């Protein structure tokens, strides 16, 4: 494990959360998995946000936020998840609680909202998210949802995501708990002896669509992808899969474990990012099902796809070789797979951090990175800024809040969060990723970074001429000033004119 030393100047209470990986040092565990320190400017959001990002990509659901308007405003279509069918999830629904609702309770209004929205949108499922205030005034969300389910004859599911009741990870759990209520309620049509679910992929910019066809080529029926491009129907059939492949482990391991317990479906943790990890994912599935034919198809895919993208990857790699990267991600799974991805492009990671990593995650991260890498949990902007300088990172990969911080520091940037508009998974996705790094690091704009314009230096002759004129000008200004001083100040006052 990494050694905790004072890597950067920060609050004393934050020091245990930042460590430097060094060989031959005593073990010290990185502090993590606790609530954020007040005033420390955490980059994390709240329980609600965790629930919202994990659940929101369910495309045909009405996602109703029970609370004041802000929580719905700030989360309206912020995740770049795409849908192959309905777009209901891109609409922002709120009960818009007002002062009177806070005083007298919001249950009645909530029931009316559900009734209205069910009537207008005819959704197969309604998710009702609770926000801070609901937890304080004690609206009985469960009871309202149960009653609404009965009346409208569709699942109306309470998502217990009061903002203050924990961290973003607790929000993921709340989302998983909501999904559990759907799973197993419908039977799928089975078309292949090999069935699986994709868990922890949110179809950002169409990621799932670059991955799912690979499995289908191998003869696997993908019952659902959670929650990217998932529908109420496919989620409710998920229990018939023989295997769960979990990518975003931070958000979906909890659900995978539950499905294992409840339905005996084993799960494997995989990643679809980077040449090596995609290959591992495909082989994992083929090995699990044990079909020789499938194994062969997997190898063929890996072979031909790698060969297809390699020339361009190679040429980009030549330009990126030896550059350094900083990773600050929401979850540890993405951070881990990124380390490999960067290596495949000839880059080395010098800073790595997450918002919601757990002890095991950081142990794995520490194992993966080289000595001298800084590992940080729940970092804040000032720490990140110091680290980017100290570690001399050429590029940062993170989300919107960090983007402009990096830019101001002259560090190239790659958006690997949920609001990116370009897909990074699968073979073409990795190519996109490489192109994006290339574009940001090799752009000529950085040549101007931090520069200041200097006066022009001309030939000796012209410089002399300019300075002669300058002397004359100075003399002239002196004379004007003297003349002005002799006069009385008789400017019109504001007071006079107003009066």
């Amino acid at each position, binding site marked *: 494990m990494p050694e905790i030393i004072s890597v950067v100047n920060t609050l004393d209470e934050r020091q245990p959360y930042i460590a430097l990986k060094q060989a031959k040092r005593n073990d010290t565990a990185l502090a993590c998995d606790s609530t954020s320190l*007040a005033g420390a400017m955490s980059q994390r959001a709240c329980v609600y946000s965790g629930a919202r990002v994990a659940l929101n990509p369910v495309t045909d659901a009405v996602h109703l936020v029970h609370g004041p308007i802000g929580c719905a405003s700030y989360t309206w279509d*912020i995740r770049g998840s795409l849908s192959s069918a309905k777009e209901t999830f891109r609409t922002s629904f709120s009960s818009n609680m007002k002062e009177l609702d806070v005083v007298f309770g919001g249950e009645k209004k909530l029931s009316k909202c559900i009734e209205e929205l069910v009537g207008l949108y005819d959704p197969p499922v309604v998710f009702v998210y609770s926000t801070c205030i609901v937890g304080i005034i004690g609206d009985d969300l469960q009871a309202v949802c149960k009653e609404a389910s009965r009346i409208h004859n569709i699942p109306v599911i309470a998502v217990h995501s009061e903002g203050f009741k924990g961290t973003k990870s607790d929000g993921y759990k709340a989302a998983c708990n909501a999904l559990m209520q759907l799973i197993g309620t419908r039977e799928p049509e089975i078309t292949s002896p090999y069935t699986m679910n994709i868990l922890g992929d949110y179809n950002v910019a169409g990621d799932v669509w670059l991955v799912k066809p690979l499995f289908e080529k191998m003869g696997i029926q993908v019952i659902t992808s959670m929650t990217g491009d998932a529908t109420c129907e496919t989620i409710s059939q998920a229990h018939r899969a023989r295997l769960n492949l979990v990518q975003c482990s931070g958000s979906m391991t909890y659900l995978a474990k539950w499905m294992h317990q409840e339905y005996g479906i084993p799960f494997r943790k995989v990643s679809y990012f980077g040449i090596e990890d995609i290959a591992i994912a495909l082989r994992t599935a083929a090995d699990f099902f044990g079909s020789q034919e499938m194994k062969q198809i997997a190898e063929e895919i890996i072979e031909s796809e790698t060969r297809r993208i390699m020339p361009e990857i190679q040429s980009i790699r030549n330009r990126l070789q030896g550059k350094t990267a900083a990773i600050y991600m929401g979850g540890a799974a993405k951070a881990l797979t990124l380390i490999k991805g960067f290596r495949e492009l000839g880059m080395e990671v010098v800073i790595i951090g997450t918002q919601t990593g757990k002890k095991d995650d950081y142990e794995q991260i520490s194992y993966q990175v080289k000595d001298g890498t800084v590992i940080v949990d729940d970092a804040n902007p000032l720490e990140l800024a110091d680290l980017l300088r100290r570690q001399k990172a050429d590029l940062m990969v993170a989300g*919107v809040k960090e983007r402009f911080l990096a830019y101001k520091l002259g560090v190239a940037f790659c958006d690997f969060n949920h609001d990116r508009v370009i897909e990074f998974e699968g073979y073409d996705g990795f190519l996109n990723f490489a192109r994006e790094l290339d574009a940001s690091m090799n752009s000529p704009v950085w040549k101007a970074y*931090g520069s200041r314009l200097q006066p022009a230096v001309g030939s000796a002759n012209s410089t002399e001429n300019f300075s002669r004129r300058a002397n004359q000008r100075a003399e002239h200004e002196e004379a004007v000033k003297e003349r002005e001083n002799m006069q009385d100040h008789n400017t019109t006052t504001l007071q006079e004119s107003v009066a």
Partner: protein
Amino acid sequence: MTDRSYATVNPCIMCQPIGSVMAFKGIENSMVLLHGSQGCSTYMRLHLAHHFREPVDIGSSSLSEKGAVYGGSENLKKGLKNLILRYDPKVIGISTTCLAETIGDDIGRIIAEFKEEEEEIASERIIIPVSTPSYEDSHNSGYIKAVEAIVKEFTATDESGSDIFNNKLNVVLSENVSPEDTRELRRILSDIIGTNSFILLPDISETFDAPITGELQKIFPGGTSHSDISDMKNSAAMIGLGITNVNRAVSYLEQTFDIPSQNLPLPIGLEYTDRLVAALSMIAGTDILEAYQKERGRLIDAMVDAHKYIYGTKVAIYGDPDNVLGILSLALENGMHPILVVASSKSPGFAEYAMERVGQVKPDCNVTILEDVDFDAFNDAVKKAKPEMLIGNSNGKYIAKEMGIPLVRVGFPIHDRVGAQRILSLGYLGAMNMLDRVTNTILEAQEEKLVAKWSEPDRYAPLDREFHITEA
């Protein structure tokens, strides 16, 4: 999607705290701390960073379950302390969220205790609480409340300033405008009133649009200076910019310090800019500056150049009330047909002023005015009114796409295009900029229509094919 009386679908407003943040960011050396759970600050940072494309740091007291049950005093104090240790701001705005308001924390008392307990680091700070529960009003009222709280704090506990008459003009905004607009306001005020003869509050021209300097400042320089805000009570006159809502800071200063004031609309378009320039010239006791006559003449020249392309174009305008009122005025005076005019939040003056302006320019114009609606209701209205273009923030993109009509982006938020911080709509230059953008958008749409029309197979066929062949 038809009538609803309970649920809100695609909100037009944000909550009060984000408005207060925009106001506090317009003050020199200041930070904001939101008293509530961690998510509020993060969401607002995201929302603002997306729009302004700048790092935006907003503190949080990171209230947890314990804080919510036993009171947030401990977290708030810790938050204040850490914020001071890390950012060393002179001014800290504390905005409450729905959580803090509902658990009933007494912010004033907590601040007093904090100042006592942490005297060493707290004594020199100015801590300004503002009550901005998210279940009341909107981001617009949050802005107004924060500006009022700032002015009250600085003019009441004045240690540095004096009571000496300063002969300056206070200019106080009651609605957020872009950094570029703020710079333009500063230029106009400097030219007409004099560089050091006005106090503009808030001023986000530098703080939300900071140049790259080669280093990262913890708090971006710029914003209205503290001495200036303290000095506002000694000013000779005052202009409130924005008329749809009560400018509470202006009312307070007028009542408390007897400073004569007038409220003017945001100077968008010819008429409203005329009103500001005339008022400023009157206050300065000067004739209209020749440079501004020329600028104005160029605007009118631009209006003449554009008039035939733009005349009668049906437009829907939406956004924050004073911005919408200004764009409405600009649209009307250029001969457009504002068929639908929508303000994000309810305000006492919006509908009346909007109708007044319609009455002045085009009394027979059929206009639908809506306030305090969500985008779903707006979309329905758009479908009914069938405008040919939209002017407003980026949240209108969905309906623009659905209707196949162009959207000219202005206001807040704009999340899907770069340069939102540099959109200029104020003053004669702003009017020219908006007019050019709108006109060019119309021209582009017309060109496309023309191409589409003549590329239809049956639209035009040579009369006699053989004739052409023999000619050749």
